[in-house]
């Protein structure tokens, strides 16, 4: 399974020159020093996903970021993983731990981000 993390770098198998340049034109970026890919334009995630699905014959999983603690939100173990369309939902969610802390904690933390 190929995991595309929206908040940090990730690796991809060798894709070939054409696919690579197509990905670069569609919102993905590559860091030569670390060898990691990163999603530069979140609004193009559906295009990135489509290109990768075409090029890689493997399951592709998108991992969104927890807006509160900045860790991975844990999409693969999420209760809603079967129904959540990660290409259509916002790029940030909450992880299980932060979900447990409730709405008041969420608004408190988000208001800090909005200051």
């Amino acid at each position, binding site marked *: 399974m190929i995991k595309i993390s929206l908040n940090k770098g990730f690796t991809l198998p060798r894709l070939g020159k054409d696919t690579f340049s197509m990905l670069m034109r569609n919102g993905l970026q590559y860091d030569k020093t670390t060898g990691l890919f990163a999603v530069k334009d979140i609004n193009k995630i559906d295009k990135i996903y489509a290109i990768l699905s075409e090029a890689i014959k493997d399951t592709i999983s998108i991992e*969104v970021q927890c807006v509160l603690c900045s860790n991975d939100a844990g999409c693969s173990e999420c209760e809603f993983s079967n129904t959540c369309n990660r290409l259509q939902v*916002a790029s940030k969610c909450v992880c299980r731990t932060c979900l447990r802390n409730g*709405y008041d904690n969420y608004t408190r933390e988000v208001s800090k981000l909005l200051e």
Partner: protein
Amino acid sequence: MLVEKYRPKSIAEMVGNEDARAEVLRLVRSWGQGSKHILIVGPPGVGKTTFAKALARDLGYELIEMNASDERTRSKVEAIIKPLLLNANIYAKNVLLFIDEVDGIHGSYDRGGLGALLELLKDATIPVILAANDDTSEEMKGLKRLCSTVRFKRIPPRLLMLYLEHVLESEGVEMGIGDRIRIVNESAGDLRALLNKAQALLSSVGSHTPTAYSIPIEHAMNRFFLSSSMSEALEALSKSEGFYSSLEFYRSSEDRRLDKLHALYASIVNSNKDIDSIADMLNTLSYVDTLIAVMNRGRRWYMLRYMDRIIASSIFHLSRGIVYNQYDTPYVLSSKIFTYGNTIRETAASIARELHESTHKITFYYMPYMIMILKNRRDVLEYAMNNGIISKELYEMVKGAAV
């Protein structure tokens, strides 16, 4: 209406699209004459209108709203917006113009409204926020050139759940995890749909009490055991649902049906009923357990309706006076298991140290023999020989040496 009651008053009270909210906030704060206006694009129910209203309130703007799909002609657009833009300076407060459903201004054909809007936006002296469900049409291209586009996406299910739980808590009502999950899934990232569905579920029974819909299994079981009539007992059973405080305990509907059975089983085996009554009730549960397995295997959900009826009609009379118990082993037995378990662990650890063996090996291989020997007070050597552990020759040799 929950939708109105829980409409966020501040942008920090909203859920989802945190980056997009921060981006619009930044754009409005830094807006000056000549800057681009802001076009918010996103599907219905993600909070575009609510955001504009909350933003105006947070930043101290006087918000003037207009629905573009209602005012499509050039004359109407000019009549509404032109005076506002020309006289913006005479308002005591800062003014923010919000044009909703701007993708509807051209409708099936252009009536001049969009052209008028574009001309007015070029010279606007106040910030304008426009909202659209879709920006892919040709007509929207001109508008997008004048605006910074910010996309609001569907709200992730976990955030919808977070908000739903906040609303339920504020309303002081309980809702089973199954209902909550179903509502969140059906809402598909639309917060307005979520609140409408919650409202419909709460009001469909005309009451905001926990009795109205699925109820925690503990309450349901106690209500079942305390109910005075068969119909009341059946109602309690049919509304019972595995109810957990956290989503991590949520399992499939098949599992939750078994939860009901487990709760009944635990309550019955822990009761003070006579042994025959307990046996009768457990027979019924065993039958229903088989029924559930058949249902699950064959996906024959129509059989579900019989499950609660069989339970209610079979154990109603026998189960009066029982109270809910979550532990599926009677206390007398569970306390023995706990005490003996501790003793066995300590003994095994002690023997293991003496014999230089693992505790596991002592517990599972040596101890059964040791217990048998001690219990029957047998001669160890004789026991070993009789069970083929040592040969007769070895037995006699050791016995002789001992003598």
